């Protein structure tokens, strides 16, 4: 296979790691809504935890994205 083509395919494959981040962030916000609708009075106090959890889950997807960019521009 052509090396340039393999590089582009590799960059595309590397970004597949973001699927996991998508599942994780969706899970966090979905769980938050489930909990918030059952007990709305406690929801406001958990907003900070919500965003920190989402940010931590998202960071791993971002690592995959950065890897993809690195391979693409290497």
């Amino acid at each position, binding site marked *: 296979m052509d090396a340039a083509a393999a590089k582009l395919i590799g960059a595309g494959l590397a970004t597949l790691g973001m699927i996991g981040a998508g599942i994780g962030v969706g899970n966090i916000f979905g769980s938050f809504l489930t909990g918030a609708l059952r007990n709305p009075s406690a929801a406001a106090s958990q907003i900070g935890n919500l*965003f*920190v959890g989402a*940010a931590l889950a*998202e960071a791993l997807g971002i*690592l995959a994205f950065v890897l993809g*960019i690195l391979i693409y521009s290497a």
Partner: protein
Amino acid sequence: MADPLHQFKIEKIVDLPDVTLPGLGSVDLAITNSHVAMTVAFAAIVLFLTAVTSNAQVVPGRLQTVGEGVFGLIDNLTESIIGHEGRKLFPFVFTVFTLILGMNFLGLMLAFTATSQIAVTATFGVLTIGLVLIIGFAKHGLGFFKLFVPSGVPWVLLPVIILIEFASFLLRPVTLTLRLFGNMMGGHVALKVFAGFVAAAVIGKIGLLGLLVGPLSIGMVTALTALEFLVAFLQAFVFAVLTCIYLNDVVNLGHGH
């Protein structure tokens, strides 16, 4: 189609002669578009905060309400996460938050986003972890290393836990850096890709299909821009929250968790 990564290229606007510094070697002092973007963000923040505080009244007007909102947001954050000691660290968190927020917002309005440069975000990450280390060693001395030994862990597990805690501590500046960088860069690449579709439809590169692709893509660009404003604020906020959490670890070492 234009390369969507072209917007992240550093270009020299005013070329100044190189300077040789002791220990660092030759340093390029040219004024680049990244430099200009950061300076504009800095000037905008100073002007905004000056305008907010210059004509302060007991009953705040519109502008003063916005300023007090930003101030109160970070004040609440440091108070609720770090506690009583948080007041002392408020200036650092507020500075980092406003600077990142300013650069993120200006990146959406101007041509260049300073926070999409890994050098800029890495500086923020290193600054934060550097302050954590300085406070940790100044406050607790060698007791700082208790950070890696959580209380109440069975001694059999201790070697593994210490290793994991140490690795996660080392990864903190890396994730702080890459999260901000990746979010800003990814958002702007997506915007440029859809803008490229609009351009291709307008110049008739894809024929009659352009009648369908053009309007859809420009709607997408509008929606993504709105989303990017949310992301720009959220990433600055998340950076401030994580800074507070990392600082809390060393300020309230041993009691807490």
